[in-house]
């Protein structure tokens, strides 16, 4: 009679609570570590964090990132080093939001916001340029493009995932701010089990050696 148990299952399901929602009308809160549209961050002084090292482009499995570096102009520097990201483009028709670029970035320049509702009617709109990706110099907030549906909180704590997986390749450094606070976002507190290794007495707390 095993055959008929299935019928009971489907019948029972009719009276259970629905797991899906009526999407466009009824949106659920996004998870804290959702991978959405990227932002390029700045330091507090307005300098871009991107140094054009192309590590993100190198690690990208979808080959959707195109970066070109250039010599930083001495009189009006864009970023704090000799090199800066001269061209930075992400093709969202190819991006799979795996976040590897964020993990590869040595300066926390690229992070992902929680915005995923952006649809374009033009292919060229899908290629985000540096101007569109970089946060506003005065407010530190991501640029809101006409076709993007930003909701409160989408632009907060955009670096959450990267911090969680350690900023410096070693989990024991995670949660420690090695570079700078994020302009407009504040510095995020360590997550559970990510206390500063200096004060963290709990051996379970740090994953690394």
């Amino acid at each position: 009679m095993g055959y008929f148990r299935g019928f009971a299952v489907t019948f029972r399901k009719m009276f259970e609570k629905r797991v899906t929602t009526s999407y466009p009308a009824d949106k659920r809160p996004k998870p804290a570590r959702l991978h959405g549209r990227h932002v390029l961050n700045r330091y507090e002084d307005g300098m871009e964090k991107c140094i054009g090292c192309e590590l993100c482009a190198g690690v990208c499995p979808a080959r959707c990132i195109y970066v070109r570096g250039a010599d930083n102009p001495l009189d009006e520097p864009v970023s704090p080093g000799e090199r800066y990201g001269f061209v930075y483009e992400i093709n969202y028709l190819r991006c799979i939001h795996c976040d590897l670029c964020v993990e590869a970035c040595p300066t926390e320049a690229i992070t992902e916001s929680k915005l995923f509702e952006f649809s374009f009617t033009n292919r060229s709109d899908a290629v985000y340029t540096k101007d569109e990706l970089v946060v506003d110099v005065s407010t530190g907030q991501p640029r809101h493009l006409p076709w993007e549906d930003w909701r409160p909180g989408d632009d907060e704590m955009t670096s959450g995932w990267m911090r969680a997986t350690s900023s410096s390749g070693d989990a024991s450094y995670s949660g420690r701010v090695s570079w700078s606070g994020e302009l407009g976002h504040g510095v995020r507190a360590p997550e559970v089990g990510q206390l500063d290794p200096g004060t963290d007495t709990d051996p379970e707390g740090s994953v690394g050696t």
Partner: protein
Amino acid sequence: MDATVFLISAAIVLVGALGVLVARNPVHAALFLVQTLFGVAVLFVLQDATFLAAVQVIVYAGAVVILFLFVIMLLGVDRAEDLGVEPIVGQRPLAAVIGASLLGLLLTLLLVATDGPTGALGQTAPLGDGADNTRRLGEALFTDYVFAVELTALLLTVAVVGAVVLARTVKGALQPLPVVVVATAEELPGTTEERFGVDSDTEIDTAFPESIEGGDA
């Protein structure tokens, strides 16, 4: 009204029959055949033989022609035949002779039979109403003609058995397929470490010193 129905269905039957002959595409020919069968079914209804009409459609249109179509589609004979080739030698002269003979027979019958009505029996002894003829047909088949019916059934059974025997492949002719053994991890010899040469207890040297990573830049 009878005449109207007759004329219309006769036209359907004739057009269908001509279509079967003329259509170049075998599938189209088969469809014309279906049309003919339908026309005949209507003629049966006109004769109060509703059961026959239904059976005509079910058996001929629903089964026989479908089988024709199967053969045509699966064997891919949906293309024009070369009329220059005569598949059976002497077929055409023979067909001409037989066709002429049949025509002659029909004409003779027409000429001879002008005196009295044909089908007089049916006219004089009605089959009853439409609802009744099923019962009557059944009775006739399973009482007076039961032997013939059973014989036919036997014949069909023999045909089926024959088809099965003919279609059967000779035993052992089937080549064995390669058997793919999918072993589970438990069945493989050795431990994971031994197989992959990784000692799961010791940490793999990432060879990327913290001094470089964590230092200043």
